[in-house]
């Protein structure tokens, strides 16, 4: 556990000293601010449902940029050799990267809560759906960051890592669209893998255990695979 904290601190300082996290946050908030302003003026409704869907799309586009360095850079700089020859279990190395990247994503999401405060200033928003929306976004961030870390563990090239994770995100996103074209047993499988199919009910306030479990289990599977990938050498 102590080693995990040491590693997480290192990951956080690396993330905060790199311009990538700030660039991702700036692009994220700029696009979101633009959308929020337009939506508020157009609908005059005090809720963030549309914003949550925007965050979903932006996260799919921006998380790969954040996670691409996780292992790819360690491999490229040979520092992975230092980590893997220290008395540290691979799972702690993976978890520290996951927790650090997740913290950065959650911090970026937290900055978007400024829009909720604007709504509270100009209207009377229903706080239940807003809190549920942020809880769903936290689950989404867990899944995306875990898959991003897994993709980064597979290559030393950051661009390939980013392309791979974005490809995986898009495949998960569109899984329900291709489901009707698939034969027999594969159709329900594709439907169950659908990212948007599990995100939408949760973010709109319909809480099903299956949706929550989807995010948790996909996160754990991705982290386990990343850990196996490191151990397999």
């Amino acid at each position: 556990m102590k080693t995990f904290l040491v590693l997480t601190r290192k990951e956080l300082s690396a993330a905060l000293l790199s311009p990538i996290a700030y660039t991702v946050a700036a692009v994220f908030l700029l696009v979101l601010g633009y959308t929020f302003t337009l939506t508020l003026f157009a609908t005059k409704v005090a809720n963030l449902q549309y914003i949550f869907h925007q965050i979903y799309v932006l996260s799919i586009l921006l998380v790969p940029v954040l996670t691409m360095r996780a292992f790819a850079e360690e491999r490229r700089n040979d520092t992975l050799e230092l980590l893997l020859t220290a008395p540290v279990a691979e799972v702690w190395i993976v978890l520290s990267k996951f927790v650090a990247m997740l913290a950065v994503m959650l911090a970026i999401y937290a900055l978007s809560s400024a829009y909720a405060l604007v709504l509270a200033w100009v209207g009377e928003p229903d706080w239940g759906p807003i809190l549920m929306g942020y809880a769903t976004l936290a689950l989404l961030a867990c899944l995306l960051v875990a898959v991003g870390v897994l993709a980064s563990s597979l290559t030393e090239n950051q661009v390939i890592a980013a392309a791979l994770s974005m490809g995986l995100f898009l495949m998960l996103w569109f899984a329900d669209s291709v489901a009707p074209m698939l034969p027999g047993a594969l159709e329900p499988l594709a439907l169950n893998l659908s990212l948007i199919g599990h995100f939408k009910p949760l973010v709109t306030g319909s809480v099903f255990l299956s949706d929550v479990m989807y995010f948790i289990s996909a996160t754990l599977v991705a982290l386990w695979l990343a850990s196996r990938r490191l151990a397999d050498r």
Partner: protein
Amino acid sequence: MTSPPIQAVSLRGVSKRYGPTPALADFSLDIAAGEIVCLLGPNGSGKTTLIRLLSGFLSPTAGVLQVAGFDVQRQPMQARQCIGYAPESAPMYRHMRVGEFLAFMARLRQVPAQQVDEAVARVAGQLALTDKLNAPIPTLSRGYRQRVCIAQALVHEPKLLILDEPSNGLDPRQIIEMRNLIRSLAGRYTVLMSSHILSEVARTADRVVVLLNGRLKGERRVHPDDTDLEDWFLSLA
């Protein structure tokens, strides 16, 4: 009757294949505590593979590797705790300062929190890095990078120090400094290093082990005045 002393390093029948390509074949070696052993061989002879197997970075296809009596495969945490490893490329985190990097590596290698500063000061003194502790890592010269890399390998006072091509990329003055540095570690640490510079080997190591095409071709004790080392090596090659 007493049991035989535990060797600092014991390798038995170690093989490593990358797909169909053998990198190391049926390699066995013992290293006594306090000894400086140098792996000598041309590029691609299997030196780095052997070092990576011993450090735990790679897994062997066959064979047993032990460090201070701990099996590198079955007791990886205990074995790694006994090893200090400085890879050839002298890798380090570019966003850190030297002191910060050494403290990070000390914590990673389980040095108790209250002893980290002391351990960093000790290795900084040993490697003449005290005035560089606040230097950002990207500003270091190649020679200083090698020193920092060896310092991180020593920060937890390992039983076995593994140095992969420590003189690589250094200028003649830095090579002499590196040689003196490694000699100064003799007795306190067991050192396994690799090199392909014949003249350096005689001046640095107690024993030389020649690897060619992943196989042990010969071994002998050496001393700084060795005159026939070159002939011996050529006869093996």
